[in-house]
C-alpha cells in the first residue's frame, strides 16, 4: 500500500512538472504530428495499399515519441541529484520505478489519444475492425514498451551518453513486444476474420509485459544504486 501511495505521489509530481514546464509532452506531440505529416506526403492516402502501412506508422509514432519521454524521465532526476532524494526517502526503489512507469505511461497514452485519430484522419482511414480490440492492443503494447523503456532508461541514466544508449538497449529488448503488437494491430485494422490470431499475438505480448514488469520491479534496486 505504501509502495503504491509513494509511486502515485511520484507520478503526480512528474505529471505536475510536465504541466508546468511542458517540455516532454509538447515535444512528443510535435514529433508525432511531424511523422504523420511526412508519411501522409510519402504515401498517397487515396491509394488502398497505403492502408497497409498504418499499423506500422502507428507504432513508429508510439515508439519514437516514447523514447523522447523515457530518457528525460530519469535524466530530469539527475539535475540537483533529486534521484538521491528519492533514494534516501522511505520509499522502495520499486516505488520509484512504478512512479516513473505511471507518469511515462500516462504521457504516452495522451500522445496516442491525440496522434492516432490525427493519423486516421489524414490517411482518410475507415476502421473496418473492432475499436475495443484496437484499444486493448494499443494498451498492452504501450504497457510493455513503457515498462521496458523505464527500466532501461534507469539503467542507461548512469551513462554520460544515456540518450544514445537507451535506444541501443531498448530496441532489441522491446522487439518481441513491437513485432507482436504490430502484427495484432495489422490484423485488427484490416481483417477481423483472423481475430484469434490477433489475440494470440496480444497474449504473447501481455505475457512478455508481465514478465518484464516483474523482473524490473525486482532488479531496479541494483540499477538505481549510486
Amino acid at each position: 500500500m505504501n509502495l503504491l501511495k509513494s509511486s502515485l505521489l511520484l507520478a503526480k509530481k512528474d505529471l505536475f512538472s510536465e504541466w508546468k514546464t511542458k517540455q516532454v509532452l509538447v515535444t512528443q506531440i510535435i514529433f508525432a504530428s511531424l511523422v504523420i505529416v511526412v508519411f501522409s506526403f510519402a504515401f498517397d492516402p487515396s491509394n488502398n495499399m497505403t492502408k497497409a502501412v498504418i499499423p506500422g506508422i502507428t507504432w513508429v509514432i508510439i515508439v519514437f515519441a516514447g523514447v523522447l519521454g523515457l530518457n528525460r524521465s530519469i535524466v530530469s532526476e539527475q539535475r540537483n541529484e533529486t534521484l538521491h532524494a528519492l533514494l534516501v526517502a522511505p520509499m522502495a526503489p520499486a516505488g520509484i520505478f512504478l512512479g516513473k512507469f505511471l507518469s511515462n505511461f500516462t504521457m504516452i497514452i495522451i500522445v496516442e489519444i491525440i496522434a492516432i485519430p490525427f493519423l486516421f484522419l489524414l490517411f482518410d482511414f475507415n476502421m473496418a475492425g473492432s475499436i475495443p480490440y484496437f484499444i486493448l492492443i494499443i494498451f498492452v503494447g504501450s504497457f510493455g514498451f513503457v515498462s521496458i523503456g523505464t527500466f532501461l532508461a534507469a539503467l542507461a541514466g548512469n551513462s554520460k551518453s544515456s540518450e544514445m544508449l537507451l535506444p541501443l538497449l531498448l530496441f532489441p529488448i522491446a522487439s518481441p513486444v513491437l513485432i507482436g503488437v504490430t502484427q495484432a494491430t495489422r490484423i485488427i485494422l484490416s481483417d477481423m476474420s483472423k481475430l484469434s490470431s490477433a489475440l494470440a499475438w496480444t497474449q504473447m505480448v501481455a505475457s512478455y509485459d508481465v514478465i518484464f514488469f516483474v523482473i524490473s520491479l525486482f532488479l531496479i534496486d541494483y540499477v538505481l544504486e549510486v
Partner: protein
Amino acid sequence: MIDITKLTKQADNKLILRGIDLKVKKGETLAILGPNGAGKSTLLKIMAGLIKPTSGLVKMKGLDLRKNANEVKKSIGYLPHASLLYDHYSPLENLVFFGKLYRVDNAEERAIQLVKEVELSYFLHDPVKNFSRGMIQRIAIARAIIHNPEILLLDEPHTGLDQGAMTILNNVILSMKEKGTTTLMVTHDFKQAAEICDRIIILKNGKIVDDFTVKDQSLGMVTEKYKIQMEGVS
C-alpha cells in the same frame, strides 16, 4: 543510536572504507574530517542508504539498515552538497512533495513554517531555479528536516554558503541537537566543526585514525590533532 561494525566498501578494485567501527550516541553531534578521498562521503552515503556496503553492519536505532531500510530512512535527514530540489518547483511545492513522501501530517503547514524559519517566506511561490546558492541551500536545509529526523547526515553543508545561510544552518543544527537529534557532519571547515560538534573523528585512507571529544570549542586542538594525523600526506 548508530552502531557501525567492520564496514567496508570496495569500488573498482579500490577499497574505499577499510573496516570502520563507529558508535554514536543519541543527541551527539559528530564531525567527520579527513583529506579528499578518505571515504567521508562514502560513509555518509552508506548510512543514508544511497549505496550498499561491501561488508559490515550498519545499525540505526537498533535496526539493521539492510533489512529495515524503509523504517530507518524515516528517521534520517540527508543534506549533501547538491540541493536535491526540483528547479522548476517553488520552495512550497518542493517541501510539500518531500513532506508527503515522508508521510508528514499537515505537510503544507509544516512547509510554510520551515520556509519562514529559513527566512524565505517572501519567495514561497517562486521557482527555486531563480534562487542564489545561499537561498537554495536554505530550502535544502528545510527539505532535510521536513520530517523532524532523529538522525541528521550533513555532507559539507557549509560549502559556498553566505554568512546568513551559515548562521541559519548552525541554528538548525543546534536546535535539532536540543531536540535530541543525532548529527553527523562531513566537513573541511574546522572552525564550524569545533563550534558545533561534541566529537570529531578523522578518516584517512578509509580508516578512522582519531576519535576525540571537543573541549571548549577549541579550534586549536582540532587543527593540531588533524595536523598530526595528516603528517606525510600530500
